[in-house]
């Protein structure tokens, strides 16, 4: 039985790989509580930890992508307790601080439990203040014993059910659909009464989009901390964007937008089309999204102002694409890969190679392929991370810096190639819709001047100094 079925936590970040692709994780992730229960059960089965568990402190440091290998390390274990870490690819994802000993008594919970919601609920942070509910386990108790037999022998199936309900509360109720489970600390208590799990919101902190809750029921008492992701940004419609450009401002232009199915690429396509230009949008995986962008543009323009085509910069030939699509006067290169990576060190060579392939080699291939006999204006998005960054952006920044040098030299030495490269500030996009404190700028305000620069007409140059 899947953990989603056992717990009732059907949050899309766990069970919907297509939707999860657009999240910060880049793909579906394992339920953190599932990994915790597996780890405790395995550690008990192998005798790595012994003794009646009386408390569990858990920090979910990093996501565990579905399909990744998980390593369990018992860092220390004695009669008092154990420190257990789960690792994937050398990265610590989860830390458990387990204590052993006598469990204290606690009064029964008198409130009745209700079934878990069938669909994840959606609320923003202020709406979660002072909420409280109590839920029933999703499945009969013997199924929790069957899933984690050694753990059931130590803490009982009611408490396993209670721990799964922590996951379900977070993923299905509060915070619900936009949740990230950060940590929990629970004491295992001797508590009469049915196996239910209730929560009460202690604090809904809008500064950090953090929700802290007290939990109690079924032999567990404690607290948990969660975050509420910013909802995925919705882009303005073509009609709304048309208010910012003249209707013929970009008339007569033919523009290729590599990576235009969402984010800045889609915004650029809409703005150029709103200004009377024709665009071709490429996508690697987001065909439906690209089709929606095109449909919206075509409906607005009343003509086929936008077409789409599949192009993966890493696997498909830019030369073939150019042969198929013909000449363009303007090219925007928004092809990207997952920017924010969970990695075991400051500089990981393979991560740098990944970024260089997309931001340097494939970019050059596109410039070379589409550089025809006429002028080509190109936009290359660099990043403000080159000016100021956290300790996990080294490889990305290096690749973008290499891209900047390439842009400068291509622009200087290759005739009829004009490249605009700009260190874009942090903007609210799928990749940056994180939870922690992060100022962001409005994409429209940032991109419109750039688009006007790139779309401006330029005369052809006869002298060729170098090839691309």
């Amino acid at each position: 039985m899947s953990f989603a079925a056992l717990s009732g936590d059907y949050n899309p970040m766990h069970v919907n790989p297509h939707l999860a692709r657009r999240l910060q994780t880049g793909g579906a992730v394992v339920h953190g509580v599932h990994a915790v229960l597996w780890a405790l059960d395995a550690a008990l089965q192998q005798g790595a930890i012994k003794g009646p568990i009386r408390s569990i402190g858990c920090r979910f440091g990093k996501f565990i992508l579905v399909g990744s290998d998980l390593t369990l390390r018992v860092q220390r274990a004695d009669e008092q307790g154990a420190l257990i870490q789960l690792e994937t690819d050398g990265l610590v994802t989860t830390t458990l601080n387990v204590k052993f000993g006598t469990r204290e008594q606690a009064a029964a919970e008198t409130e009745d439990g209700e079934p878990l919601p069938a669909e994840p609920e959606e609320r923003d942070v202020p709406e979660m203040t002072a909420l409280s509910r109590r839920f029933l386990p999703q499945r009969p108790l013997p199924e929790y014993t069957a899933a984690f037999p050694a753990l059931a022998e130590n803490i009982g199936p009611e408490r396993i059910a209670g721990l799964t309900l922590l996951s379900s509360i977070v993923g299905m109720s509060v915070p619900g659909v936009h949740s990230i489970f950060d940590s929990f600390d629970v004491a295992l208590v001797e508590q009469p009464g049915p196996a239910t799990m209730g929560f009460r919101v202690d604090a809904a902190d809008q500064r950090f989009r953090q929700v802290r809750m007290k939990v109690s029921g079924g032999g567990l008492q404690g607290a948990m901390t969660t975050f509420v992701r910013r909802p995925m940004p919705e882009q303005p419609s073509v009609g709304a964007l048309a208010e910012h450009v003249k209707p013929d401002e970009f008339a007569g232009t033919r523009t290729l937008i590599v990576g235009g199915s969402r984010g800045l690429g889609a915004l650029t396509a809409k703005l150029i089309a709103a200004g009377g230009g024709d665009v071709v949008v490429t996508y690697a995986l987001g065909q439906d999204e690209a089709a929606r962008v095109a449909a919206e543009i075509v409906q607005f323009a009343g003509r086929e102002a936008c077409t789409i085509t599949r192009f993966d910069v890493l696997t498909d030939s830019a030369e073939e694409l150019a042969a198929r699509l013909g000449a363009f006067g303007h090219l925007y290169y928004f092809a990207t890969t997952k920017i924010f990576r969970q990695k075991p060190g400051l500089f990981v060579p393979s991560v740098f190679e990944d970024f260089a392939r997309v931001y340097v080699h494939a970019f050059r291939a596109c410039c070379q392929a589409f550089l025809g006999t006429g002028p080509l204006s190109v936009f290359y998005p660099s990043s403000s991370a080159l000016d100021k960054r956290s300790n996990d952006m080294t490889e990305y920044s290096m690749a973008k810096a290499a891209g900047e040098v390439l842009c400068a030299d291509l622009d200087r030495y290759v005739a009829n190639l004009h490249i605009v490269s700009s260190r874009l500030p942090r903007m609210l996009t799928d990749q940056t819709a994180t939870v922690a404190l992060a100022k962001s700028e409005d994409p429209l305000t940032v991109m419109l001047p750039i688009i006007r620069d790139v779309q401006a007409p330029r005369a052809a140059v006869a002298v060729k100094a170098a090839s691309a």
Partner: protein
Amino acid sequence: MTESEIYERLNSVFHSVFFDDSILVTAETSAPDVDGWDSVAHVNLMVAVEGEFGIEFTTQELESMETVGDMARLVAAKAK
């Protein structure tokens, strides 16, 4: 509250947030010096410091803090 009391209590907060009793913070300690001190851990750290000292940081103060020394100075100013 003396400066050394503030650092002692900040040290305990670090132990609790990072599950690591070996951490010994100084005024110069910052994110690269502590394993696991990423952006999410930073939020938990800020919340824990607020809880420990009964204070609340403004958004500007949160953005201005880079070292434990910055933290200690703000705590000293606010937790009178």
